[in-house]
């Protein structure tokens, strides 16, 4: 099973990188661009077939290492 973890800053936490990207996109003429938030994607190969177990263990990984839950939130996507 493969897991994809999306880690992004929580709403309300200032994201200066996202802001800089937004400014750059506006500068390139993409006038329709509003707020931009930047995050990261982490792909994990898991030696686990049970989806519930896989989700639980990836959640544990997020809490312990992959995200800093003081400033970040995470989403988990699993693929068979």
């Amino acid at each position, binding site marked *: 099973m493969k897991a994809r973890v999306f880690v992004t800053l929580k709403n309300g936490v200032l994201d200066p990188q996202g802001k800089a990207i937004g400014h750059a996109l506006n500068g390139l003429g993409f006038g329709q661009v509003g707020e931009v938030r930047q995050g990261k994607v982490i792909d994990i190969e898991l030696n686990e077939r049970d989806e519930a177990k896989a989700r639980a263990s990836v959640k544990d990984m997020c809490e312990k290492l992959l995200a800093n839950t*003081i400033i970040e939130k995470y989403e988990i996507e699993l693929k068979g």
Partner: protein
Amino acid sequence: MKTAVIVFPASNRDRDAAVVLEQVTGQKPYMVWHADSEVPSDVSLIVIPGGFSYGDYLRCGAMAAQSRIMRDVKAKAEKGVAVLGICNGFQVLTESGLLPGALMRNADLKFVSRDVGVVVEETQSAFTRRYNKGERVVYPVAHGEGNYYADPETIARLEGEGRVLFRYAPGENPNGSVNDIAGILNEKRNVMGLMPHPECACDPLLGAPDGLPMFQGLVEALG
């Protein structure tokens, strides 16, 4: 008094810390490698130095916080051993939960490397007892992720309990930190983290030795 400096791959201010520790204690500190399991038990002060531990992978300090030696640093901190985290060391302390909050990208996205004015806000600690309350000192900073953030309740607690030890002088906040916070203390008042580098302001050859009283005060309090 015995001291220790934790050395991670890509620590780079570990030897600056060692020089000042030897100067104030008269003894070389233990240089403890991150993969070791224990800090020697006769140590009264542990310094987590500046640098770019583990290449700042994932988040600054995140990998170092999971290293084997940090389990023992946490255990010793709980027993009351003083821990000083400087710059990357501060990031390691927040990532490992020894200090609240987090250090984010500098608000203007620039790495800052220069001297800054810092105000000593609180002298009721082993780290700041040799300073005067409200004293303005100059320490160098060198970081890209020093923007201190915590939720409003945590900030209110830190402020209310006299745990903000250092604040950037008015108009000199180099990174966008909430309330201009430069350094904070844990609840038990034995763990301190700050972004500026007092250990690099200890030799008159390098400018005003404004960092020296921190280390002299620690020896006085713990020695």
